[in-house]
């Protein structure tokens, strides 16, 4: 019904080969862009930008970068944190050496420098594959972090080894430093996200992407049909590192403002970005966004739901709290009924009731302003829940959120007349 091709004719080749060939899809995309560009900047405050939007946008760029390398070209990399550090430190050196140049230029150059470093560390991929390549990129991770900790030139010989982003502006608007407006840093990141996503999407649809995917699916076969593995692999490393470098530069300059390499760009970061593309969906640009959103928003949401507490609740909240609590009770009972009386493997109904329970619980906690549980228990629960969800995703939907989205779209094409 919503996703229908009927009546949506392409009369030219460009029309036929556009990114979103279905009209509804295209308009939805324009709507998202419109909201992101014109609505959100007017409404955000410091909290929304610093706690949710900036990490989401910046991680999305990193995930796009890693997805090109791992999802499209099939080269496993555990060096993302190290490459982000290259982006951050080159941005810092450029910012302090050329204070009058626009931040746009610095961030782009940081991406270029990271691309060069990425190609250097991508060279072993010509000889080794799979786990062995993962170990080689792991070496890059540790080497780069060690380098930025060891060589004082990279942090301008500051006593502590920390790098701090001085105030820099773009078109007269502050982009870095403490006095930046929330909307400015948001817009700056957003521009890079749109730019990265459009480029990545078009690269992966074109000849480059096909070569990468050929290498991923079977490198020997790809070589036989005429794909140059040297060019394909190194270009994947270059493009991927370019995006990761940009995200590292933004992470340092716009988001955190002060960075210590071992703490911020450690092996942890490589894993988080890898989880993002696995949960989001390997080989999918949308998946990069979905994975980043999942891992950035979920912990914050859990914290707001469980750890926060609101001392003064209005009567309306109080009443709605009871409504949701009743809903939670009913869905629990229904779930139990399914579990006890059906005596089969978890049925669709049961899964549905479990989702209903979760939804009721979320609604309940958000209405009453959080459960007010001890912060340490919530922090442990966060780890448990995120970990469990990763496992559930790997078992139930190995292709990630992007695949769920695809299935949903397929269903919506026929809905409400599935036969």
């Amino acid at each position, binding site marked *: 019904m919503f996703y229908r091709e009927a009546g949506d004719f392409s009369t030219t080749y460009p029309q036929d080969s556009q990114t979103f060939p279905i009209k509804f899809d295209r308009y939805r995309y324009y709507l998202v862009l419109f909201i992101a560009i014109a609505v959100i900047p007017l409404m955000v405050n410091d909290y929304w930008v610093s706690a949710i939007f900036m990490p989401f946008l910046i991680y999305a760029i990193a995930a796009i970068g890693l997805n090109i390398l791992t999802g499209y070209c099939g080269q496993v990399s555990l060096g993302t944190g190290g490459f982000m550090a290259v982006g951050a430190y080159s941005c810092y050196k450029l910012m302090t050496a050329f204070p009058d140049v626009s931040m746009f230029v610095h961030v782009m150059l940081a991406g270029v420098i990271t691309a060069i470093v990425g190609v250097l560390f991508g060279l072993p991929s010509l000889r080794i594959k799979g786990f062995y390549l993962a170990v080689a990129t792991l070496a890059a991770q540790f080497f780069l972090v060690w380098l930025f900790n060891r060589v004082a030139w990279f942090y301008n010989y500051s006593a502590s080894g920390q790098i701090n982003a001085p105030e820099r502006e773009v078109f007269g608007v502050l982009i870095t430093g403490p006095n930046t407006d929330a909307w400015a840093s948001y817009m700056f990141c957003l521009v890079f996200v749109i730019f990265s996503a459009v480029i990545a999407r078009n690269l992966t649809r074109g000849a480059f992407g096909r070569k990468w995917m050929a290498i991923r699916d079977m490198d020997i076969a790809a070589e036989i049909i005429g794909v140059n593995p040297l060019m394909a692999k190194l270009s994947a490393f270059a493009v991927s590192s370019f995006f990761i470098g940009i995200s590292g530069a933004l992470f340092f300059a716009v988001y955190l403002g002060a960075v210590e390499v071992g703490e911020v760009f450690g092996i942890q970061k490589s894993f988080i970005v890898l989880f993002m593309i696995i949960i989001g969906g390997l080989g999918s640009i949308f998946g990069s966004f979905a994975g980043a959103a999942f891992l950035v928003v979920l912990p914050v949401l859990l914290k707001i739901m469980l750890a926060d507490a609101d001392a*003064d609740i209005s009567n309306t909240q109080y009443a709605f709290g009871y409504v949701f609590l009743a809903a939670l009770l009913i869905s629990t009972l229904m779930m139990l009924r399914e579990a006890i009386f059906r005596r089969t493997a978890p049925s669709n109904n049961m899964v549905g009731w479990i989702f209903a329970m979760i939804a009721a619980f979320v609604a309940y906690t958000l209405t009453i302003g959080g459960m007010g549980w001890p912060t340490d228990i919530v922090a442990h629960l966060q780890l448990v829940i995120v970990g469990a969800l990763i496992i559930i995703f790997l078992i139930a939907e190995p292709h990630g959120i992007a695949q769920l989205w695809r299935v949903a779209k397929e269903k919506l094409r026929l809905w409400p007349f599935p036969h």
Partner: protein
Amino acid sequence: MKMKLGTMAVATMMAASPVMADLVFPSLSYRTGPYAAGGIPFADGYADYMNLLNARDGGIGGVMTKVLECETGYNTEKGVECYESTKGEGALVYQPLSTGITYQLIPKATADGIPIHSMGYGRTSAANGDVFSHVFNYPANYWNGASGAINYLMSQGDISGKKIALVYHNSAYGKEPIRTLEELSKKHGFELVLLPVDHPGQEQKSQWLQIRREKPDNVIMYGWGVMNQVAVQEAANIRYNMENFIGIWWSGSENDVLPAGDAANGYKALTFHGVGNDFPVFADIQKYVVDAGAAAGNGDQIGTVLYNRGLYAAMLAAEAAKTAQEIHGVADITPAMMRDGMEALEITEAKMAALGLPSFGPEFNVSCENHGGPGLVGMTQWDASAKTWSLINEFAPSDMDVIQPLIDEDSAAYAAENKIEASCK
């Protein structure tokens, strides 16, 4: 769920009566993650003292205190989230207990006009209040610590020509004392050996092998978390004389020495506050907080070194709030007033005794130019059989002739980089 319903009912009733705003003290704590062993006692001490003030004195100047706890896990990104989510709630002062998060918050909190108190950590040159208007690190900082250790060694005998090794956490925190120690080594003629340990510090075999080979006369350690216990254990393994092993105050808690057992006997650590639970305030905590069932965490940390530090931090914050109330003549203070209170803070022996903490810390006062206090540091020593720390050297001055130029230089560089003008007239 039942309990929550009860609180909901109470909350609805309370909503009818006028709500008095609280004095909000956010506690960016870490009860999870690699440094939780240090984060838990500090957070407990901080929360318990504020609870005690509410239960015993009815808050500060008649206004109740409220500790907003937010879990950072020692992670900078979570620290940002915690800062942004608590700053709108009227947060008076931030104490993140993490050098990384402190560096992060220095420009942000200054721009938002909220003071930071990084007690014995953070950016050392923030002691220069002329540049860092909203950052305080009284009563002592890393460089005072480094100098205090050297002063202590000099009081024990001549150190010229001796070899001193610095085992440090390879991060902003651990690198802080290097400059000071280098200056001091020039001044007093000892040789300095630098041994970095990478986060989290579980692997230190090579560093201690080097110590075994080079045989330094003394080892100074700037460690945190698991790194401390491993270092003490490794020192015991190579039979390094514990008498000659000195840790900074972040390497001197029960957690660090207990795993090594008797072998840790004689290990020394610097401090800027009293140790043990032999102070009258602990009777009050027992009566008003623990017996009332309101103890933070598991309530099993009371009297440990880091608990006392959290308590000391809370005490200084509360005293600064009192000072602010006196200066501005209002009970319900704002972060800007809190800043004034911190800047005018005066801690005297009489005040500490009245609070049930006689001789708990050095006497000091803060001024607009000097946010770092006098930098008096004491020395404690671990007794493995009694399982207690005891103060073996009273709070003594550190070498400000060496430290002050370094503070001026580093803060001037920061001021130039960020175009900050002197804020004190």
